[in-house]
């Protein structure tokens, strides 16, 4: 069983590194979003048909994220560099083409309006500082320096953070700290995550969650 997964992952890696990149088909992706991979819950159960996710439950917004980024996360759940007991069984039967289809579908969904910012000016100011200037005394570069202007995302390696659910952002920063998420390219996020204080994590998650997201350019 495990062997099969490795082969699938390898096949997927070969496929995307080939000269001709496979394209996801959003219409086919929508069916999978509604029906699941045949052995687990359908995507929409947590992420919604519109990809809006859910802050209270910590389910990320997928709508408008970069398609290649979304696809890579599904592959990484299967390879184990990103650990989630919820996600892994729900995507382990997807073929590489189905992964691309689901990613294409969610990338195309319109971005929902950002949630209202909480009434905590001090927290938001600290969060804005981390996002736009960083905290170099702790060797923390600004989020924007990799995730792009206004943290709206940079290509497929650096996802948009603006308008992502605060609970999800917090959860992921902690996942890098405890080692359950190790799929950042070249460990570019791990060090930053472990240098952030609890208060800075709270602040930057809150601030980013309150910004309006713009759909990724690469979204197909």
């Amino acid at each position, binding site marked *: 069983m495990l062997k099969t997964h490795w082969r699938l992952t390898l096949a997927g890696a070969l496929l995307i590194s080939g000269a001709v990149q496979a394209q996801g088909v959003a219409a086919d992706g929508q069916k999978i979003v509604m029906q699941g991979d045949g052995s687990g819950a359908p995507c929409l159960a947590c992420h919604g048909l519109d990809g809006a996710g859910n802050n209270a439950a910590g389910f990320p917004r997928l709508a408008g994220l970069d398609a290649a980024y979304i696809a890579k996360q599904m592959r990484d759940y299967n390879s184990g560099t990103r650990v989630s007991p919820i996600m892994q069984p729900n995507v382990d039967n997807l073929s590489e083409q189905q992964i691309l289809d689901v990613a294409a579908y969610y990338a195309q969904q319109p971005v929902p309006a950002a949630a209202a910012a909480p009434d905590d000016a001090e927290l938001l100011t600290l969060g804005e500082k981390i996002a736009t*200037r960083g905290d*170099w*005394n*702790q*060797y*923390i*570069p600004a989020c924007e*320096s*990799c995730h*792009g*202007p206004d943290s*709206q995302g*940079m*290509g497929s*390696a650096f996802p948009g953070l603006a308008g992502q659910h605060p609970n999800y952002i917090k959860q992921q920063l902690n996942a890098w700290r405890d*080692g359950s998420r190790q799929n950042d*390219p*070249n*460990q*570019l*996020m*791990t*060090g*930053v995550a*472990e*240098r952030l*204080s609890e208060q800075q994590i709270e602040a930057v998650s809150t601030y980013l969650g309150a910004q309006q997201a713009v759909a990724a*350019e690469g979204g197909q």
Partner: protein
Amino acid sequence: MKANLLMLVSALGLSTSALANDAKVPVNLPAPKDGQYVHEAPTIDDLMADESVNPELRKVILKGYDMFMNTQQFRGEYVFNDMNCKTCHMGEGRMNWSGPVWPAATTLPDFRGKNQHVNSLEERIAGCFAYSMNGTPPAYGSDDMLAMVAYHQWLAKSAPVYERNIAGRGFSHLGKKIPEDVSYEKGQAVFETNCAICHGSDGAGQKKDGEVVFPPLWGDGAYNWGAGMTRIFTAASFIKNNMPLSKPGSLTDDEAWNVAWYINSQERPQDPRYTGDAKATREQFLNFHKHTRYGTEVNGQVLGQHDNTGDKPFLKPDSLKPRTFE
């Protein structure tokens, strides 16, 4: 070891948690040498909290800070490539081992080998605009130049004037001697593995909506052939202590040298001191170019033998001129 670590902590102002032994990605920076002055440059938060600063002065320092962080606002005026000051002087120009800019305010006027005369702080800043930004500086004495000077001087607050033994100054901690076994191919392999994800395999960097996010390392948008960063030792030390972003000290010395060699074996806008012949220009400014590959043959081409000044519609800014006191 522990003493070194503690010195490093105080040198950077880093909290001990950032340097915890169990860090998966540690901050590995050199410890200051015995007897070196270790400066802790003030932050913008310190500036805002300091009630002794005249509000008009605070405004001017903040303008300098804004120019430093977003120098691209002067694209086509002072800057003709994709660089900001903060691109090389990371951490707002405050960070030791990231080319902190405040020593220019405490060690100048002084003689500089690069242009063979005594330079002021303004002239030093002008050098960055002429070479690293492939442009032309704000006029000496202008509001823009004063704002830049004010930011530099603010960062130098409480530092001893003309103290030259400074921890984390410049980019030279790997020394100036290039290891004999550096190679283009080894450098390329380091680049593809560690750098290309942000700077691109073609070294052109990445923009979004016209805004530079990852700066180009060669080509028209990069520093020109007269910039300090074209020196292999400068680039090697910068890379060792600053790159990849958030992982200082993660590359081996060998990797840093090889990738610096590879990056500085690529074409870039012309040296403003160009005489029309790259080999002759190299000879004329050999005290600088002995550390670069400019005017030498790389992969069948003489580097710098071209008339390309990038986006800049001229070769030499008026600010670059000799000075004598006779």
